[in-house]
């Protein structure tokens, strides 16, 4: 059995084979920020399964592209379209996940479905620890912290890199945790890596020749690089959010155009970065975290034009708006 630390979680992995262990560890290593107090225990047991695949569930808790999740007793039951499944139960404060992977899936593309199951276990653990996972980026400097909200591929990572070049710190590039305590909202980092597109080098030469790095996914040309391998001390562990920036592409422009975000658009902007389960308790935690956060932040709308980062002063107006 080996242990991994994924933000506030201490994850133990007991896998039947080395191949299964490495597949699970591959996902766990993506969340490579070890927090000083990683106290929420999660236990993963992974075995090869023989026989027929389980029937796909109904998705009463969550429906994903290759996985559906159902509430089952006091835990969850997830099934993937390739026949892997996971069941959770909580015992003495530890959430135990039993993951079965059909041996026919080993070494095939279907083996990647294990990642979905592991991410489900992590998100469940983070919520039990009081944190809401946010699929977004964040940058911080001098008491200002902006959450960058956009769909995948719009340019959160590139914008984060542009901020870092101007002395800002990244709280995260793609994956964050948010909670609200008596002292207010707190944002925390889960990763010290960037997913950057090779064309980023055209604007930021110091990132180097990213195309020489291996692809980390068949779905994107982006490469995964450690932030501190490019910019030293560029990542901070936590920050208090002060702004939410809705980032969108504007092909008709060649600049960055910033304006105030209408108040009515703040909630939709942030909630669309969060996977909201259908279960009321899980959804309520998310809403109880998002709503007080929004009372403390200002909203900005940022339109990113083509080749907007070519200009050295591209971020001037945005930085002014954040002050």
């Amino acid at each position, binding site marked *: 059995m080996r242990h991994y630390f994924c933000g506030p979680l201490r994850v133990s992995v007991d896998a039947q084979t080395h191949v299964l262990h490495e597949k699970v560890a591959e996902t766990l290593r993506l969340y490579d920020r070890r927090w000083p107090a990683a106290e929420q225990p999660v236990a993963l047991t992974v075995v090869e399964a023989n026989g027929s695949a389980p029937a796909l569930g109904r998705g009463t808790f969550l429906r994903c592209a290759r996985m559906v999740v159902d509430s089952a007793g006091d835990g969850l039951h997830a099934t993937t379209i390739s026949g892997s499944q996971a069941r959770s139960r909580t015992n003495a404060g530890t959430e135990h996940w039993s993951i079965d992977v059909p041996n026919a899936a080993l070494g095939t593309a279907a083996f990647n479905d294990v990642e979905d199951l592991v991410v*489900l276990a992590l998100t469940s653990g983070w919520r039990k620890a009081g944190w809401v996972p946010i699929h977004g980026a964040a940058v911080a400097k001098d008491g200002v912290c902006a959450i960058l909200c956009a769909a*995948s591929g719009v340019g959160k990572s590139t914008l984060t890199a542009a901020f870092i070049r101007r002395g800002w710190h990244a709280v995260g590039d793609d994956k964050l945790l948010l909670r609200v305590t008596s002292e207010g909202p707190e944002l925390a980092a889960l990763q010290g890596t960037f997913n950057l597109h090779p064309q980023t080098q055209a604007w930021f030469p110091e990132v180097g020749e990213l195309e020489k790095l291996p692809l980390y996914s068949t779905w994107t040309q982006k490469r995964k690089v450690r932030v501190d391998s490019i910019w030293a001390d560029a990542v901070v562990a936590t920050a208090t959010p002060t702004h939410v920036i809705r980032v969108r592409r504007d092909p008709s422009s060649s600049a960055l155009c910033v304006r105030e975000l209408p108040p009515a658009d703040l909630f939709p902007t942030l*909630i669309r970065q969060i*996977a*909201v389960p*259908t279960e009321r308790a899980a*959804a309520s935690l998310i809403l109880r975290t998002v*709503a007080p956060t929004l009372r403390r932040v200002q909203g900005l709308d940022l339109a990113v034009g083509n080749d907007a980062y070519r200009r050295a002063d591209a971020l001037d107006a945005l930085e002014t708006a954040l002050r």
Partner: protein
Amino acid sequence: MQMFDRVAATQMLTLRPTIAAAVLDDGAVLLDLTSKYFYSLNGSAWAIVQLFETGASAADAERQCAAWGGDEAAAFIAQLMRYDLLEAAAAGAVTVEPPAYHGPWIAPVIEQQAEPLERVIVSAFDPSIPLAE
């Protein structure tokens, strides 16, 4: 008293159990966990909706709304029904103390967001629309 499409004014109603709420500075947001639609409410709309958290009849809501200084409850409840946010309360549902409403009464407004949250997403962490394989 205005009657509603499907229920009598004395029928006890509650918010559907699939509705989650978040209180914001100037009102609230309701999220329908089944349809994934969410709704923005101003302060007076949220005050009326809170009457249905444990159970209230349309007549109860109209009386309370009048006490707050408004006369739009019937039309507003009809709107909640059209959005399918209310259902008949279970037997034994009781009306509780109404929430406090501060300040001058303004007409209740509920707005449905044009686009619901995605019903099928990439993963438990990533709420994006999955790419076609």
